[in-house]
């Protein structure tokens, strides 16, 4: 089977400005959402208590609400169905430091008359740990981006590095925007998803950049836009196929992976789509706009080659001289 067969390069760069504009709008919208609506921090980052209760039949949610409202600690607790009608989650911003009788034990006593149930999960994060986790989370995102920036500038030219990191920031921002838009709870696993998007989207971008680097060295053309069009077209099938396979597995994770990792798989789904888009339409144009010059690059490479050859020659002379 062969879906992608192009004799001529697709003129992606002709539309670069339009896509650039679309990306800017999307990023601005995401930033707007992040700063106005803000993240819906889950337990891990905000602290609090979460109790998951499984009933042997449909959970009597109103009764449960009434039952737990008797305790002052749960006045502002939210009770929601989780995944299905038999399962509920009770959330509150409070947490208790006591080991002996914790919030799960209190809940068990409060709802003991609401039916046959089993408490399946009690998570409690104190405020101090929450803020520590948040700091560590931001730190890890920054460090990952920094590490990637260093590696890519080492392997490519600096403009490649800047372009790929800008594309990354673009992807992560839009993914975060989607998380805010859909009110997905931000927990540690959402953070893991964001870091995976970093790695994944960069993966895509690097494959394209690798082709561009190769194209600059071997192509007869010397217009960067044309070389980019050629390279993106050549890697288009790979980009799409890999995105598809990854999309498949993330989708199965989203549908079958269970309610607990839904935040994780949703963030990844968005990330895969945005990451694919950005490696085709965003990363390469940035390279162009950063003023990368094919001629200069070739000149530099030629000089480097010349210097190396001279060195070799001198060494050969030196060696034969001493011999």
């Amino acid at each position, binding site marked *: 089977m062969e879906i992608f067969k192009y004799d001529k390069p697709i003129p992606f760069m002709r539309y670069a400005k339009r896509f650039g504009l679309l990306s800017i709008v999307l990023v601005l919208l995401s930033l707007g959402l992040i700063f106005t609506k803000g993240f819906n921090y889950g337990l891990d980052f905000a602290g609090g208590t979460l109790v998951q209760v499984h009933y042997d039949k449909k959970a009597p949610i109103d009764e449960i609400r009434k039952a737990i409202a008797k305790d002052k600690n749960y006045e502002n607790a939210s009770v929601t169905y989780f995944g299905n009608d038999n399962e509920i989650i009770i959330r509150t911003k409070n947490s208790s430091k*006591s080991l002996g009788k914790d919030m799960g034990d209190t809940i068990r006593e409060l709802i003991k008359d609401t039916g046959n149930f089993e408490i399946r999960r009690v998570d409690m994060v104190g405020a101090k740990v929450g803020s520590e986790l948040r700091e560590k989370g931001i730190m890890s995102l920054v460090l990952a981006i920094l590490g990637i920036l260093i*590696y890519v500038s080492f392997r490519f030219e600096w403009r490649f590095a800047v372009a790929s990191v800008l594309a990354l920031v673009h992807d992560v921002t839009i993914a975060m925007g989607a998380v805010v838009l859909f009110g997905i709870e931000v927990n540690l696993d959402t953070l893991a998803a964001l870091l995976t998007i970093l790695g994944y989207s960069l993966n895509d971008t690097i494959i394209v950049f690798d082709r561009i680097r190769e194209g600059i060295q071997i192509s007869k053309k010397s217009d960067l836009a044309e070389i980019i069009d050629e390279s993106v077209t050549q890697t288009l099938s*790979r980009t799409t196929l890999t995105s598809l*396979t990854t999309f498949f*597995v993330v989708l199965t994770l989203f549908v079958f992976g*269970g309610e607990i990792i839904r935040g994780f798989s949703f963030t990844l789904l968005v990330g895969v789509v945005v990451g694919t888009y950005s490696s085709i339409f965003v990363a390469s144009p940035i390279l162009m706009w950063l003023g990368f010059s094919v001629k200069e690059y070739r000149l530099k490479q030629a000089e480097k080659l010349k210097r190396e050859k001279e060195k070799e020659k001198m060494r050969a002379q030196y060696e034969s001289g001493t011999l």
Partner: protein
Amino acid sequence: MKTLNFRLILFIFALIFGVVFSIPSLTQSQSGKKITLGLDLQGGLHMLLGIKTDVAIESRIKSMAASIKYLFDDEDIIFDNLRIEDGKRITFELLDSDDVPKAKALLKKELEGIKIEQNGLKFTVEMTPQEVARTKKNAISQAVDTIRTRLDAFGLAEPTVAKQGEDKILVEVPGIKTQEDEQRIRELIARAAHLQLMAVDEDRNSRVETMSPQEARSYGDVILEDVNHPRKYLLHGIQILDGSMLTDAKVGFDQNNQPVINFTLNGQGAKIFGDFTGKNVGKRMAVVLDNKVYSAPVINERIGGGRVQISGNFKLDEAHDLAIALRSGALLAPVYVMEKRSVGPSLGADNIKASLMALILGFVLVVIFMVLYYGMAGLIADIALVGNLFLILAIMSLFGATLTLPGMAGIVLTVGMAVDANVIINERIRELLHEGKSVAKAIEEGYDKAFTAILDANVTTLIAAVVLWAYGTGPLKGFALTMGIGILASMLTAIVGTHGIYQWLLPKIDRKRLGFWFGIKTEGKK
């Protein structure tokens, strides 16, 4: 057919290694190194505990004060107004100035890490800053040991208790069946088990019901409540002795067949206890546990041998847990919960089911897709993918790594990403074939050209995985681990392994049947 090449041999070895070492994990056999399931998959309790080290200082001061009292009594040094101020200073007055050198020498000899200040006959004893720091540090490591001993004594399978950071304790207990059991375990951990034997202030005890705590303090006394009855006792603030002198505690039964706890004191404790009971016949002595009075019997005669009983209307379970707590020693400083995650066994089973389902389905989808799209080349990539999965399991088994729910997600994701290398290679080979290159050349060049792209891409993903591993906590570490191992393993299986298979099959690959081998229809441009 060409003879085996080194790439293929390497791949076969990797495959055998992968299968052999993942067998113990897959079959869950008793022997052999295997993967442990994380608490989110098998159910269990995860807690991060904080510790109030200030309390350890206070109780250290209290036991110092008790020592001073005992030492001075023993040496016939006459003193008065022995008090504890602010929970960190001991003050007393000597009545006879001739005793001063003797008292000072005695304190220096018997008590470590103290600073003595003297103002006439008034003395202030404090802990040195180094001693305070040492005591705090000691309290944490003692808490770790004590909690571990208690959990072991409770008979739980492989609990983890470890110090985390400077002043936190990580406790992980797998395999808890019900929430009631969990609560019992938490109570066992939290139990201070601070046992004290204290003398009742018989001169003033009759007024205890109306006495204010301030007034009690002015006599150097404390008011404590009875554990079973609404009754109070006025006790001398300086204890006779505490649980640190206890050697054993066992559950027994009294004449009414009620569970009680019998404990035995060590030599020094037995001597102090014997001396005290001998001097105080007719008075009452209270058995105090965690600041509650369990009993306050009248001393009928001198009690030697150091055997004491605690009774307090215990349930059998309760007495059992309490004996464990007493045997393991008191927690010098109380612990509190900073973070707690507990997953019931049925939810753990659901999590395994859901993530396995996602893994199998994702895997099948990818495998079918690759064969449909690339023909034999896709099948070869699929073989590598299977090899990759086994390698991940084998490496994790060898390190005894923990597989968590996010870790499962990491494996699922690796399935998607590992075939990426083969997609890149296959696309390159197709391109080269379209250009009219020979099969052998297309394969060699395809691998050559695809390599740098794959390497760069994998290294960057690896950077993200390493950062996540270093900064992540608990389950997230599991995600970073499986993803990292998966990427490294894919370099071996997807690049070296498939290359080896192609080299081995090369003589069979017919340029006229490219549709079968690589899923393309081309005769080449030439």
